[in-house]
């Protein structure tokens, strides 16, 4: 499988188009609906950014198939160490849109309590570990978490997602080398450009399996990750998956490609499309309204969670900060 680009949507079609045997109808349609939701939320974020409500946002446009397809192959109890472009994965794992928006706005309903930028999602219940600004720290951490899962013995796996910049980082190689040496139940999905050589040789050097998949093909991504996850769960080790995305934006329409395929399978229609988009639009409008009504975290909340308990110094400094905040409030014209 190494080197050969795995695809489903571009397979030669003879006669009736059908889903691959490993993918059921509700799964395939579910992946598509999730991608529509992710794309709509992503557009909302860009709108909020244009309005000045969000200062900083990294768009996941074009990554919907890669994000949703990969997360679709996980089960409850598995871990995700996401990239900045994993809004689709976060939604697929069950984080509701209102919580996503709360995170963007940094309200008290944000699990991260407004302490991070609007693409550093975290969720304890869904085992989503927030990325820092580093490109590949999550890969080496995911390798360690995978070892912990191996010791726990419940066949849980860890998925880490990174971009092509990660390959320049020592942490990427440290993580893969560890995973190869200790046979960790880790799957790494690396987004790469179609004009790059690919990572089969990197995977081989670290003693992990490799796969290469069309990153714009949600069904192919799902199959590749499901295969890798099954290997990891069975104790057969780690896989590095190249999710290849075309450099030219013209090639990037993962929604359109899957929609066309589902229509050809008789599983989708223009009517279903309209209904789906209307429902999502209503859902997001409501989620935005509720999220915007939530309060901001207090100054005191900003001083918590540095350690389990605030130190005496931190408590004293909080009082200084509160005094400074009220002094500046009263000085406002």
């Amino acid at each position, binding site marked *: 499988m190494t080197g050969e680009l795995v695809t489903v949507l571009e397979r030669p079609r003879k006669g009736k188009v059908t889903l691959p045997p490993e993918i059921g109808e509700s799964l395939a349609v579910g992946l598509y609906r999730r991608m529509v939701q992710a794309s709509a939320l992503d557009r909302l974020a860009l709108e909020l950014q244009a309005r000045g409500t969000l200062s900083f946002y990294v768009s996941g446009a074009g990554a919907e198939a890669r994000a949703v397809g990969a997360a679709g192959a996980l089960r409850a109890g598995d*871990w995700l*160490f996401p990239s900045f472009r994993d809004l689709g994965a976060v939604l697929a794992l069950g984080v509701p849109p209102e919580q996503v928006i709360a995170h963007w706005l940094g309200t008290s309903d*944000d*699990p*991260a*309590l407004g*302490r*991070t930028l609007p693409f*550093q999602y*975290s*969720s*304890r219940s869904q085992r989503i*570990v*927030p990325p*820092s*600004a*580093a490109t590949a*720290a999550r890969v*080496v*951490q*995911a*390798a*360690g*978490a*995978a*070892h*912990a*899962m*191996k*010791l*726990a013995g419940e066949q849980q796996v*860890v998925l880490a997602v990174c971009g092509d910049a990660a390959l320049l980082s*020592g*942490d990427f190689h*440290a*993580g893969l*080398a*560890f995973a190869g*040496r*200790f046979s960790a139940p880790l799957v790494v999905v690396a987004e790469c450009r179609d004009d790059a050589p690919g990572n089969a040789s990197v995977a081989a050097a670290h003693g992990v399996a490799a796969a290469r998949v069309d990153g714009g093909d949600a069904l192919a991504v799902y199959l590749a990750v499901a295969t890798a996850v099954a290997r990891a769960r069975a104790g057969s080790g780690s896989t590095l998956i190249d999710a290849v995305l075309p450099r030219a934006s013209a090639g990037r329409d993962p929604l359109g490609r899957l929609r066309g395929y589902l229509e050809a399978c008789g599983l989708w229609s223009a009517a279903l499309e309209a209904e789906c988009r209307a429902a999502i639009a209503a859902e997001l409008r409501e989620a935005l309204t509720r999220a915007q009504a939530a309060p901001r975290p207090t100054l005191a909340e900003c001083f*918590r*969670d*540095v*350690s*389990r308990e605030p*130190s*005496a*110094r931190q408590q004293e400094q909080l009082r200084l900060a509160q005094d400074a905040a009220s002094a500046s409030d009263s000085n406002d014209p």
Partner: protein
Amino acid sequence: MTSSTFLQALNDALHTEMARDARVVVLGEGLGDPVFPVTRGLAARFGDDRCLDLPPSEAMTVGTAVGMAVAGLRPVPELQFADFSFAAFDAIVTEAARMRYRSGGQWSCPLVIRLPSGGGVAAGIDQSQSPEAHFCHTPGLKVVCPSNPHDAKGLLIAAIRDDDPVIFLEPKALYRTSRGEVPAGAYEVPLGQAAVVRSGDDVTLVTWGAMVEVCETAAARADELGLSVEVVDLRTLVPMDEATVLRSVERTGRLVVVSEAPSTCGFAAEISATVAERAIEFLEAPIVRVTGFDVPCPVALERVYRPDVSRVVAAIEQVVDF
């Protein structure tokens, strides 16, 4: 009670905690045949999955430990020398120290990074540093440095049981030269608590690690000169036990801080600033620091670089004569 060296006491702590808590794992370069055998016997007793022998990559050692800690283990990564912590600086400062904060308290990072630190063993400029100031300056990290075998075992056990990342500095000069009585079984020396190791009324010496013994000897020498010197062993740098330090200075009125790290922005400066802010009305003399120099410490310089008894006695006399 057993008479143990500093190194044996640390080994004892690891055996004790790994037997008590299946979540505790150790990892580091060449654990199977380490430079300082603090991990001796652990792999044979607890297996290779809990005692991971890693290739020479500090980023891998600390980075995977962060992931293990988030996923429910209690990792105790070891680096061969404190100086090598810079290769894992991002993993320590950006990742371990901020995991709890960044996640809104959903995740924590209970790990203990063990660092053989300090000079006195002719290990050269890249293997003799005392880098505590870099970590004391990082919110989210606790920084601990024992000075004797009893505290080494008790502090390491306490650090392993702590739910937050701890930088655990082990003065390598003490590994085999420091010997003391160590209780059998599990016990904790609480983090954030200093110890007054010698009482006195005229001058307060505040210090930690390998310098505690130097200060005790200097205090004994000062005693012969008719001066009564109190020695405070901080044991934990962050969070600092300010109450014990201030209580001592309020009584003596004179403070000397002793640290083998370079002078500028060393932790001795933090102690000095804290006491000056909070106890100026009690001070009879300026605060004096006795420290290493703002140069690397080559083997050739080691004898004069690290504060010795004469330099500390001179500082005691300086604050008394002011």
